Each structure stands twice: as structure tokens, then as C-alpha cells.
């Protein structure tokens, strides 16, 4: 079976003024469907850069990134935006919820890019809020929620459109131990119960243990 994600000979070089900063050097990686992968590595090793490429918010300097059969390195900007809305669920370190929107409205955002009916949207939003255990908080604004609760809203937002892949860049990085534990249990459940493919960057070995497999990145290369 072909892997869900195939990163092939990817090079990423940032150009700042005339200076070239090589970040990823000829990297290859396969992620099978249903995987829960943890990416570890020292600061500056290129973990976020790799995630950005796989999630289609950045383009590689060379190489190809094939996700569910699509080479996303070849898509133009607007095709890529559409692709992201269908295939990627983002979980950010600082949750990145819209402060002026309620939990419900935040979770609904990805669905505004779909053709689902009003009723279907409502059902989906309520369903995922139930999965993350915040059905009773859907009218709360982010600032009325704890960090752990906000991250759970963010996870609900990440899964509401049923994406191919869930991408988390240090999803527990800003949380205390207990909240972090809850988030990890939730991610584990999404992987095991709902068969979601997850790629997560983390500095916390404890967190990484939750994943099925751990990859180490160092100076832009897998160890």
C-alpha cells in the first residue's frame, strides 16, 4: 500500500537578502495512513519547516511532496488553499482561535469553505465539540476558556472537516502537564478510534511516547 504522505528528496533553502539558509537537505519520509508520528529534534533543526511543507503552507525549493496522490509542490497558490481546506487540520502551539468568535463559530470556520448545508454544519460542529468534551462550552469565547480547553476547541476545528491529515506543531508546548496529558489522550483517541493520521512536532519526550513512531531531525536531516 502506498504511504499517505511521501516526502521525496525535499530541499528547502530560505533566502534572506543575499544570504542562503539551507534548512532541509534532501529529506525523504513516508507516512502510512493511520500513523501517529512524532517529530523531535533540537531547536532550529527544521521541524516546523517540514510541517509547513507537508501541510501546504510553504513550498519546497526542490523535491516532491505527495499527499494522498497529489503532488502539492506542483499546485499554485489558490489550488493549494483549496487543497488545505480539504486535507489538512491544523493544531497550533498557541491554539490560534479567533478571539471574537465563540467556540462554536471557531470550530465552524473550516466548514464555511465547504458546500455542506446549514444543518449538516451544525451537526458536525456539535458532534466534534462533543468528542473533545466541550459541548457545554460552545457559546464561550476563547478568553473564557483555559489553555487546555482552547486547544481542545482547536482540535475540534482541526477535525471538523474530516481532513486527510492532522498537523500539530508543539500542540502541548504551551500547556501545563495535566492539560497536555488531556490533549495527548485526545490525539491518541483520534488516531486509534477515528483512524486519523497525525504528524506532531514536540520537544517533550513524554508526549512523543504517545505516538506510534518517533523520528528525529537534526540539522535538516533524519538521524
Amino acid at each position: 500500500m502506498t504511504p499517505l504522505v511521501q516526502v521525496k528528496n525535499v530541499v528547502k533553502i530560505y533566502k534572506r537578502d543575499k544570504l542562503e539558509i539551507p534548512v532541509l537537505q534532501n529529506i525523504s519520509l513516508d507516512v502510512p495512513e493511520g500513523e501517529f508520528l512524532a517529530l523531535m529534534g533540537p531547536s532550529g533543526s527544521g521541524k516546523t519547516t517540514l510541517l509547513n511543507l507537508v501541510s501546504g503552507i510553504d513550498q519546497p525549493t526542490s523535491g516532491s511532496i505527495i499527499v494522498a496522490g497529489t503532488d502539492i509542490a506542483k499546485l499554485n497558490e489558490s489550488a493549494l488553499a483549496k487543497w488545505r481546506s480539504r486535507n489538512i487540520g491544523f493544531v497550533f502551539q498557541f491554539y490560534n482561535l479567533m478571539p471574537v468568535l465563540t467556540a462554536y463559530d471557531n470550530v465552524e470556520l473550516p466548514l464555511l469553505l465547504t458546500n455542506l448545508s446549514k444543518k449538516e454544519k451544525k451537526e458536525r460542529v456539535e458532534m466534534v465539540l462533543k468528542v473533545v468534551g466541550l459541548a457545554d462550552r460552545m457559546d464561550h469565547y476563547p478568553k473564557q476558556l483555559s489553555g487546555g480547553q482552547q486547544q481542545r476547541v482547536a482540535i475540534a476545528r482541526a477535525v471538523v472537516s474530516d481532513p486527510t491529515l492532522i498537523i500539530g506543531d508543539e500542540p502541548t508546548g504551551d500547556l501545563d502537564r495535566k492539560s497536555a496529558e488531556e490533549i495527548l489522550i485526545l490525539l491518541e483517541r483520534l488516531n486509534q478510534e477515528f483512524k486519523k493520521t497525525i504528524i506532531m512536532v514536540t520537544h517533550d519526550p513524554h508526549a512523543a511516547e504517545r505516538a506510534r513512531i518517533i523520528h528525529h531531525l537534526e540539522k535538516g536531516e533524519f538521524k
Partner: protein
Amino acid sequence: MKIPFKYIFRNFKNRKLTTGITVFGIALVVFVFSAVLMMAYGVQKTLIQTGSDENVLVARKSANGEISSILTQDVVDILNTLTQVAKNNEGRPVSSGETVVVINLIKKGTEGGMSNVTVRGVSDQVFTLRPHVKLTEGRMFLFGKRELIVGSSITKRFEGAQLGGKVRFAGDNWTIVGLFDTEGSGFDSEIWGDSEQLQDAFNRRGGFSTFTFRLNQKENFAELKTIFENDPRLQQFEPKIERKYFEEQSEAMAAFIRILGIFITIIFSLGSTIGAMITMYSAVANRTTEIGTFRALGFRRRSILGAFLLESLFISIIGGLIGLSLSSFLQFFKISTLNFSSFSELEFSFSLSPQIVIYTLSFALLMGLIGGFLPAVRASRMNIINALRAS
């Protein structure tokens, strides 16, 4: 535009102070802008109301106002014999040979400040000719006497112009024996007397200014025009529908108010447009991560552009509505100023029209559009990764 309107509206609501100041600035400019348009329209409305569709006013072609027009007695006599002039039950022509002069009177509350007032000499048919003129107090002046009746605005605003008072001009004292009102036309800003008495006092016997008469049938106006073109004795004169005549008299004044007012408000509007721009730039800067997040979720650049533009338009339309509702209160006020087409005082009220509402709100939206454009473009052009790293 996929970004929900809630997002735009709540951001507007949340930044109370900055949006408040911006809204206030736009409201202020819109207030001035609409006040100017209402003033110009008020002048027009007042003068249009002055004339009637059923009357014809004859003036000298070369004159650009009533006071600079001269008609001699023999012309008036010819005009009175025209078949197009309506007759009353006694068979007399419904017409008024009028002598229009300007005098100086002291304005109340200005400690001796003078202004010009139109005095109109009229004939005894004038009330039949202009039925909207109503005597409100006292009596009609007697023909052959130095008596006057005074319009409601003049009696309110000028010293000595009250019932029983005397005003002095042309070397004589004239007694005020009555007051009249027309519910807001330009005649309210006039004094009326006997046409012949005025000619005597100003040493211009037989020197009328204009001649106004009731047309026997409206359709006869075209026929009347040909008579004026063909009769050599009338070729220097031009008949016009009275309403149209006064309407044309209002154009110069209204245009002057508009041009001056619009010039001033455009300068003001630069200030509030820049204000809107600063507000929107700071909104974009404060919400960089949110912009990056929207983009990561798959929202397009043009959705971001639209959202910020809409927020700016929202600010400006709220400002516009506030400014407009403030200026709509001006409708309850009357002001009096020198109308330089007649060189005399004219009282009018600020008047609002649907057209002014549309112009004013479009002007507000234009400020929002211009102010919001560059910030919205900046927001839409942001690089996703840099925007996400801003947190």
C-alpha cells in the same frame, strides 16, 4: 467572501476606542457635508416655492435679476391687453406690475448691523395672482399711501419691521400696517407696498422692474413666447413661468454654497480618511496571526481583502449614519443670509432630500473604501508563514 460577518462586526465592536474615534471623525465630516447640501437645497426649495406654475413673469432679457430689470408704463399697458392674461370676475387682468428695490434695515441683535431687504411694489391684484400669500395680522396697505405689509421672516429679524412700526427709506417714513406669510417661500423675506408709491419715492415714475400675470390657459405659454419674439415693442423682454424664473435665480447661490462647502469638506475628509487608514492598519497589525490562521485554514487572499475592506466600510457607514442623523435635526432650523442673486436677505431652512441622503452615505462609504483599501491589500498580501510566526 467566506469570512463570517460576525468576525467583522465583533472586531468593530471590540475596538471601542479606536473605532469610536474614527466613526466620530467620519460622522463630523459627513455632518458638514450633508449640512452644506441641505443648505443649498434649502435655498432652492425656498425660491422654487416662491413662484407659481400658473404665472408668467416678464423681465428685461439683459437683466440677471429683478432689481436690474426695467419695464416702462407703456410696456406694462401692452402686456395688460394680451389675450393670454387671465381676467378676474370683474373683467380686469390678474396681473401685477412690480417695482423691486433693495433697502437697508438694522438686523435685530446685531447692534446696528445692517442688511439688505427686498421691497416689492405690487398692484391690487396681487392676492389673486399669488393666493399662497396670506395676511396674518393687521390689514392690507392702502394704495396711494406710504404704507407697507411685511413678510414673516423680515418682521422676525429686523428692527422696526413689526406691526405698527415705521421704517425709513427714500427720504420718508413708511408705516407697517400688516404682516403676511407664505409658509416658507422667498416672499416671507420681502416687504410689500404700493408699486406707484415706491416709484414716486425713488424718483422713477413709470419705471417698473417686472410684470407678473396669471396665464389664462397653461397651454398658451408657447403662443405667448411667439408674440414676444414677433412684436418689436416686446423683443427686449422675455416671459418665463414664474416658478422657473425664481428657480433659476436660486441656482447661482445654491451652486456657490455647494462648491464652497464641498471644497471644505473634501479637505476635512482627507483627515478622516487618513484616520480610517490608521485604524485599519493597526487592525491588520494586531490581527496578523488571525490572518495567517485564516489563510492556513484555506481562506483565500480575496476573502481577507474583503473582510478588512468591509470592516472599514462598516466603520464609515456607521459614521455616515450618525453624521446624517445629526444633520437631519438641522431641518428644524431656519437661517437668513444675503442671497447674492437678489442682493438681499433670504430666509430658508435646511432641507433634506433622498438624493442628499444617497450622496452623503456614498461620500462616507468612499472615505471608508479609500481609507481601508491599502490596509486590506496589506492584509491580503501577507505571507502565511510570516503571519503565523508573528505570535
